């Protein structure tokens, strides 16, 4: 079964056409990369899948059920998580409080007005475990806005993952990272996404080819090709349109 599928998606921003007839299929358990030059429409595609926008036309399916037009919070509750290209954390809250919000959501603690959150030990423990796993336990009480770039991005990614979603969409998780930071981030993602379905948007071809099981190439809002890394590397159209520029 496909974990995620889009059928004939179109989108335009008050006249500006951004996506044309997008048919994307992401299989359960695979790591799927969406690549394409700047402005190709990758983030817009994510925004439609995760409920930020409604598509102008077309449908989105998640675990076989139609989800077109559902809101981000509904999608999160049925198992979709997402990180943002532009870091979007709770900057005035500490790293601990950031992750704790995700844990609260994962455990469905929403309208609990009877206990102090600090006193709920399972939640504190689980939050600290997550912080340890992403190497942020030392920065537990730092405001997110004061973290170093690499750590801030790590927090961003784990916010998407801490609700324990089945499908994770990561938008350029390594953007702006140094070589080392990228290396660590790739390792972190391998570790955190064990057994999950992942869709990533990424410009760094080394990252894409080392991480992805399958790749979809987006070009001016159309899907140019979909296939395994080898197939994409060999595809003449892709080479002409995209990879050629990057001399891969």
């Amino acid at each position, binding site marked *: 079964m496909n974990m995620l599928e889009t059928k004939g998606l179109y989108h335009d921003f008050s006249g500006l056409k951004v996506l044309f007839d997008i048919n994307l299929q992401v299989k359960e358990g695979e790591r799927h990369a969406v690549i394409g030059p700047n402005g190709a429409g990758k983030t817009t595609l994510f925004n439609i899948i*995760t409920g930020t926008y409604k598509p102008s036309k077309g449908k989105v399916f998640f675990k076989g059920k139609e989800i077109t037009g559902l*809101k*981000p*919070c509904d999608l*999160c*509750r049925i198992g979709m*998580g*997402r990180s943002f290209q532009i870091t*979007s*954390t*709770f*900057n*005035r*809250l500490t790293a601990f*409080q950031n992750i*704790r*919000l*995700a844990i*609260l*959501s994962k455990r469905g*603690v*929403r*309208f*609990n*007005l*009877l*206990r*102090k*959150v*600090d006193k*709920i030990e399972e*939640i504190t423990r689980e939050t600290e475990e997550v912080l340890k796993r992403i190497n942020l336990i030392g920065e537990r*009480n*730092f*405001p997110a806005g*004061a973290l170093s770039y690499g750590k801030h991005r790590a927090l961003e990614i784990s*916010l*998407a993952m801490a*609700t324990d979603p089945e499908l994770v969409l990561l938008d350029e998780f390594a953007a702006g990272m140094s070589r080392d930071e990228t290396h660590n981030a790739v390792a972190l993602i391998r570790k955190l996404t064990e057994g999950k379905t992942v869709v990533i948007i990424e410009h760094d071809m080394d990252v894409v080819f080392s991480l992805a099981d399958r790749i979809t190439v987006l070009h001016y809002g159309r899907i140019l090709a979909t296939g395994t890394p080898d197939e994409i590397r060999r595809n003449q159209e892709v080479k002409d349109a995209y990879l050629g520029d990057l001399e891969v």
Partner: protein
Amino acid sequence: MKNKIINWFLWVGLIVIVAIIPKVFGAYYVSLIVTFAVFAVLSVSLNVLLGFTGLLSFGHAMFFGAGGYGTALALKHIAGLSLLSSVGIGVLSASVLALVLCPLVVRVSGTAFAMLHLAFAQLMYVLALKLRGITGGEDGIGNFPIPPFTIPGVVSFNMKGVPENFYYFAMIVLGLSVWLMWFFTKTPFGQIQVGIRDNAKRIDYLGFKVSHTKAVVYVVSAAFAGVAGSVYAIFHNLVSADGSLGVLVSFQPIINTMIGGVGSFFGPIWGTAIFQILEEIIVRFTDRVELVIGVTLILVIMFAPQGLAGWITTLKQRFFSASSHKLEKIS
């Protein structure tokens, strides 16, 4: 552990002071302190909305007024109503009003939210003046019966004409309100509120419904404003359009909050105290309340925009260089 004991002593000390005030000082100070407590609760309730979700209301008076009118009307028309139920009816009126407005107001934020409330409060004010048959117009509702506070078979405290008794009742109700609101901000739900203030989009992506959360906070904030209004009405044995629904009643808690510090839970309480002391001194020289409020607002926003709480933080940073080092690292 040591801290806990100190805190414990502070609390006991505070309760003792509150308890002996009527014995030591006269009726005037009793009245002053009840007024302070009423506006402190109103200000804290406003700040629950403003400081913890970032929603600024220019019409909080409508919930204060709903509480006051609700209680006064109930006491006037329902014979044999107990004191607590009359307060309960006031709180219920404010909450119901908030519930009715909810679907509309949670869709807007920022400036539109502030102005919408100004408009609704104005509407309530006009209604209170025009619907004479119910609200008594300009005169308001006064001289309604005030039942004694009774625990059946145990004790009964007469409330009417014994300010001291009402003082204790008011302090317990208002103190409890502050504690409940404080607890509210510490619950998991309170964390979600703070998250909304910081980054509502991300809260949405984490699976929390932003509008539902805002709605709950809104109703809670309104309910406690209603408590304040209700107690205020019983205390004066009067509720009037100007005294409980006028724009100045809406602006007062904003000013108190600004003085004390937005986003600090106890800030508005300090702010209320400071403003009231200022007012006490100034009214000896002039009776121009608008002027005092206006000038205070301008001065605070220009020279201490973070209020007393922000000011203390800055002072701390300056004087305790060891801790300021830590703070620097964080911010």
